[in-house]
């Protein structure tokens, strides 16, 4: 480059610049490529993440079923004889399922053979049969085809995760079982369908019957509590800080606190929930009420910050006009400012709710990680949440749980994408430019 050490003639200067141009040009190109490389790396991670989850999760939405001809023996299925659900669930469905599978396999003899045949079926097949009978009481006493889930090991075998080539001693299922599965398969009895257990089943250690229903409802209840608390509080705080608060020490303290809360790690909110709501107030563990309150306090800064931005975007002329025709300050705020700022506030709230839906660590702290089979029906009943369910399933070793976990992740991501898309649409549609 030209420098100021000595005087250069313009020709000399131009020559020196020209000499550096090639180097500078390629350095420019390198810099540009670095930028492209950085973005490609980030996008590659995104693709890897999503392809990994989709490739495991989409098959996880399906599972293998076997359809057996079952004789619904009234005497054994309905011990009390009144066809009530209690009686049907107490019946001997398990034995009937076993007999049906043995029949389908041509009545094998010997204890080992029978055991192998039984191991094909999911251990929850008896419940499924009882359920079927409760739903179709008119079929009792007849022989009808009923669809059962296969055991998760058999399912893994059908998917090719368990290979025939592996020596029998190292395989989770033995040769006898494989022969039987082949026989059922050749008879066309095994089908591969969308898993009804995934969406309608509850937590279970058996991979083939585990489902997300309870966790999903727990998440919805928790989010409902969170919304009911965080939205009014957040909007009220934003209104106070933007429209009313005088510039004084108290206001400053509130603002500092909101900024600090936004920086506190989420797990700390969980610890606070544990120490205050559960230990000090004696509220029960694992309930959506406590979970919702903790998540509400956590999402409060998000909602406050976006609501303040929305209120600030309402032009002063609106307020002046309202005040000018004699509205009080509260009337101005509640009749004009808040309705005009509402789209922005709702957008921030939806984004805050999406954050809360994906949050796991604080819920672990307040015990929503417990193994809960029943579907919760209220905010004070023990429940778990979808991300926590994912966390628990991720710990299980069975091959099928990897797919189920990924399937649950797809459901969670679908919810998150829907919520974020709704926020974007809302912002585009309703937000006014002044």
């Amino acid at each position, binding site marked *: 480059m030209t420098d100021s050490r000595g005087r250069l003639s313009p020709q000399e200067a131009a020559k020196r610049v020209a000499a550096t141009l090639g180097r500078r040009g390629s350095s420019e190109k390198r810099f540009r490529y670095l930028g492209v490389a950085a973005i490609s790396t*980030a996008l590659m991670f995104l693709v890897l993440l999503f392809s990994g989850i989709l490739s495991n999760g989409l098959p996880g939405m399906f599972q293998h079923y076997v359809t057996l001809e079952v004789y619904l023996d009234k005497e054994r299925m309905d011990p009390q004889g009144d066809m009530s659900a209690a009686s049907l669930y107490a019946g001997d469905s398990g034995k009937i399922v076993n007999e049906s599978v043995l029949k389908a396999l041509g009545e094998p003899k010997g204890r080992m053979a029978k055991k192998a045949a039984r191991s094909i079926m999911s251990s929850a097949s008896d419940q499924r049969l009882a359920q079927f009978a409760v739903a179709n009481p008119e079929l009792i006493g007849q022989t009808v085809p009923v669809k059962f889930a296969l055991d998760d090991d058999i399912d893994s075998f059908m998917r090719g995760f368990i290979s025939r080539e592996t020596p029998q001693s190292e395989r989770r299922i033995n040769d006898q079982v494989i022969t039987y599965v082949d026989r059922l398969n050749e008879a066309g009895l095994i089908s591969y369908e969308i898993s009804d257990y995934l969406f309608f089943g509850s937590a279970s250690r058996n991979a083939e019957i585990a489902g997300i229903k309870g966790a999903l409802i727990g998440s919805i209840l928790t989010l409902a509590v969170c919304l009911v608390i965080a939205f009014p509080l957040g909007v009220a705080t934003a209104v106070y800080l933007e429209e009313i608060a005088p510039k004084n020490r108290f206001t400053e303290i509130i603002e500092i606190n909101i900024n600090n809360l936004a920086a506190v790690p989420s*797990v700390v909110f969980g610890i606070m929930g544990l120490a205050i709501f559960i230990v000090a107030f004696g509220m029960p563990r694992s309930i959506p009420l406590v979970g919702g309150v903790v998540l509400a306090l956590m999402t409060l800064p998000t909602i406050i910050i976006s609501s303040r931005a929305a209120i600030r975007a309402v032009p002063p002329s609106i307020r002046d006009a309202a005040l000018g025709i004699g509205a009080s300050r509260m009337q101005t705020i509640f009749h004009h400012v808040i309705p005009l700022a509402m789209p922005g506030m709702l957008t921030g709230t939806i984004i805050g709710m999406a954050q809360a839906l994906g949050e796991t660590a604080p819920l672990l702290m307040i015990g929503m990680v417990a193994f809960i089979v029943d579907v919760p029906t209220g905010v004070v009943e023990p429940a778990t949440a979808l991300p926590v369910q994912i966390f628990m399933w991720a710990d299980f070793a069975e091959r099928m749980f990897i797919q189920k976990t990924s399937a649950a992740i797809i459901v969670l991501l679908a919810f998150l994408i829907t919520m974020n898309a709704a926020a974007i649409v809302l912002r585009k549609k309703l937000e006014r430019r002044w």
Partner: protein
Amino acid sequence: MSISSLALYVLVIGMMYFYVGQRTSLEQRANGDVRLHSLPHYYGLWTGLLSALPAFILLVIFAVGDDIVFAQMVKQYYPAAVLEQDVAQQTIAFARVMNVVDGIRFGNPEQWVLDAGAAWITWQATSEMLMSVIVLAVALGGGLIGYRQIAPDFRSRNGVERIILWGLVASSTVAILTTVGIVLSVLFESIRFFQLIPPQDFILGLEWNPQFEGAERAGSGNGEATYGMLPMFVGTLLISTVALTVAVPVGLFSAIYLAEYATPRVRSVVKPLLEILAGVPTVVYGFFAALTVAPFVRSAGEAIGLEVASESALAAGLVMGVMIIPFISSLSDDVINAVPQSLRDAAYGLGSTKSETVRQVVLPAALPGIVAAVILAVSRAIGETMIVVMAAGLAANLSFNPLDAVTTVTSQIVTILVGDQEFESAKTLSAFALALMLIIITLALNFFALQIVKKYREQYD
């Protein structure tokens, strides 16, 4: 009456008073040519609020307070032997009384437990009746006071607006209360922990073995419980360093490209895509790290002859870095865009190429903001929980090697506090001390970042 039905009654009474108040003021207006001070519905709101609000507040106080009062009262039933014991034994005694109250029986409780349980049940019935009577009386009485105030020159709007104002003030104090709650809940337990374990042992200790606590108390086992936090802080730093090594270059260069080079169309596609990375829940990253990245890192390490732990800091750090990329890129993007165009134009005018402008003019001008973004990212990485719980180990190795398994502050907190825990053991309390350190560090980083931004923000305005 149960709390929820009582709340419903209060609501109904309040709404009735609203209706009555509004009707009364409407009639007053219709009866003569009096001018009301406020619009009729403000008279209704005033009566309704006066009826429902104090009743609701009382209801909440009763609902929260009764168990706390009972817990004190029930102590008179404890035999002297129990009262002399430490807090842990009293907690157990209390739990046994509560079991009797809930109708759960374990074995044969002593007579005093049964007596205390029976007393508790009577108190509960009494307080419930008392609560119903008082709350309903307040609801009816408060409304009556409001109703008697209704007169054309009564300034009901001002009254209602004053109540609303106090409501708004109360809402904004929730942020303060939350901070106070967080600090107090962590501070008290930490102080108790430091009474058991000297602070210098905790802060400077090189070994972390709280799991020997149970064995130590039972008098068996050959390990001694130690509570040195350094291994976890080194682990946290190690994983954060790996994360930043990934996130800072990728995030920064993405931001530079998006801000300076990309066409608006590329920008409008790539920026939201990068932000998706920020919206993915951390539990999903954790699953990805444990399932895909950790085995990959392990086999890649083995292929070149390195021994990699199956839960290496490298895998967790890599994934955490991916999580932080959008954080750094979008904050830096904002900062770079905030650099005035005149600076760039000046550099171009002197003949600089684009990359020279970026390196020698734009980046130095944006540096404070970028540094602040990186500090905020560090505080994010330190506080991140699920990725390390799922993908980093639990063994507290004091190691600077990213191929080893290390543990972090957050994953220890989760491990200690998940599930049932007794609140009196040093092991449980140590989680609170760790949380205290975590809060101090993240808030300090946050404060630091804000100071940098504040100091350099208005340089070009």
